[in-house]
């Protein structure tokens, strides 16, 4: 079982002596091997949700559970892909992916197989000895994704992983991630503010309200995707042209727009 459960999670943030309610009673369940995207206006706490599953932050009240156990600290079972890539600059591509595997104590032969597998999968062949600063943003994020997948984690957490990339690279990465997610399905919590991306990648999309964040709406994408057969299109622009895609996207957009209105009121 590798499901994620939020049980009435509240997060209060203290700064300059004042308390800010960031998350207000989030209750959410993500099933095993389900790909869930979370969208919402800035400051709604969506990244905080992910960080609590990762064990990098903790709820003020309520619980976050993975596979039935409360999250107490970070673990390679809950692998994270950061927006800023977070690769170790002093390690080569190979060593970056290898590092976590060594900590897990895997034997050398096994590690080599795993790394070579993901280097092939993420189109990193030939760059094994390169250092992060020699790679483009897209390449670096590929390494970060390879690193996360190589750990064979129960849960994958992605915090706006394509946010720092330019538009064209972003599209390529989205296509690659979709392929990877279909070949290698696992529980994924994907944070993004790009609605297109969320509809394209996810099984369900969670829409959050503006601060203090609550779950506003959960949109089921998977049933539409399977019914309309999106997966038979390999190019992202073909999928995004489909009426079924457009109507889902517009629906989520409208829902978010209401929240943006609230943000402006409060500003």
């Amino acid at each position, binding site marked *: 079982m590798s499901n994620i459960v939020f049980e009435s999670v509240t997060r209060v943030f203290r700064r300059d002596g004042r308390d800010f309610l960031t998350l207000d009673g989030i209750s959410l369940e993500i099933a095993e091997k389900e790909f869930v995207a979370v969208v919402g206006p800035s400051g709604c706490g969506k990244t905080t949700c992910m960080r609590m599953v*990762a064990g990098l932050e903790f709820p003020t009240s309520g619980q976050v559970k993975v596979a039935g156990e409360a999250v107490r600290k970070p673990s390679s079972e*809950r692998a994270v892909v950061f927006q800023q890539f977070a690769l170790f600059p*002093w390690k080569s591509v190979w060593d970056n992916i290898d590092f976590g595997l060594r900590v897990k104590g895997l034997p050398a032969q096994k590690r080599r197989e795993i790394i070579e597998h993901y280097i092939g999968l993420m189109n990193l062949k030939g760059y094994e000895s390169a250092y992060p600063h020699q790679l483009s943003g897209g390449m670096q994020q590929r390494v970060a994704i390879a690193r996360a997948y190589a750990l064979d984690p129960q849960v994958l957490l992605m915090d706006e992983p394509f946010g720092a990339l330019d538009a064209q690279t972003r599209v390529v990465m989205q296509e690659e991630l979709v392929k990877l997610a279909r070949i290698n399905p696992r529980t994924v919590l994907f944070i993004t503010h790009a609605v297109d991306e969320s509809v394209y990648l996810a099984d369900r999309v969670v829409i959050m309200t503006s601060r203090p964040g609550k779950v506003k709406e959960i949109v089921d994408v998977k049933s539409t995707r399977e019914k309309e057969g999106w997966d038979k299109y390999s190019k992202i622009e073909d999928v995004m042209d489909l009426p079924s895609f457009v109507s889902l996207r517009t629906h989520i957009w409208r829902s978010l727009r209401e929240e943006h209105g609230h943000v402006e009121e409060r500003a």
Partner: protein
Amino acid sequence: MAHFRPARLAVGFCTLIGVLALWYVSTSATGWIEPTRFPNPVDVWDALQQITVTGYANGRLDQHILHSVALVVMGFLAATVIGVPLGLWMGYSARAEAFFNPIFMLIRPIPPLAWIPLAIVWLGLEDASKVMVIWFAAFVPSVINSYVGVRSIEQPVLEAASMLEVRGARFVREVVVPGALPHVFTGLRLSLQASWTTLVAAELIGAFFGLGHVLTQSSLDIYPAMILVAMMTVAVCGGLMTLVLTWLEHASMPWRRKS
């Protein structure tokens, strides 16, 4: 300030030649500047020959250099071997920082040269007092810069390390040390420069040997040419040591090289 393009080098070279010419003219040919105030190039050359071949102030130039450099290396190594690990530790352990910081804040504002009189009281005028002062000169920058080096490791990288469950000795060896290394080298460079400066000062104040002593002796003998020789030697040696350190720095951080 140093771009090694040919045109720049040419202009630089010409300027130096010009200055040299001016130097020669003003000190010997016209006598604008008295020989007791500033030496002329010929005298400097003679002084250089004297100290390299026959010796001055109890020894030859190479002996003085060796003696001074040896003291610097001893003090520098002794200080950095303690200072760098301490700084690193203070950087990643809030507890270590809380414990050592106040003591450090007391010691830090005292300039290295201010330790000289105390060192002389405790250890006399022999080499030991010099090494003690060099130790303090090298200790402070290495601690501070190692600390800053750890602090400069980006937060996402540290979070990635905790996500990968990197802990203990492995965390120090494969995350803290390489992450802090650029700043550690800056600290080492500053420590070395401070060590060298402090040694010369210490030898100026009281010594029986070494470059600082040459400076003192030539001052007492009113031998400006030798003063200049000693000053230039101090500058050149300092520069060479820094060069060696910079080479070491580039060699140890392959991930920082531009491809």
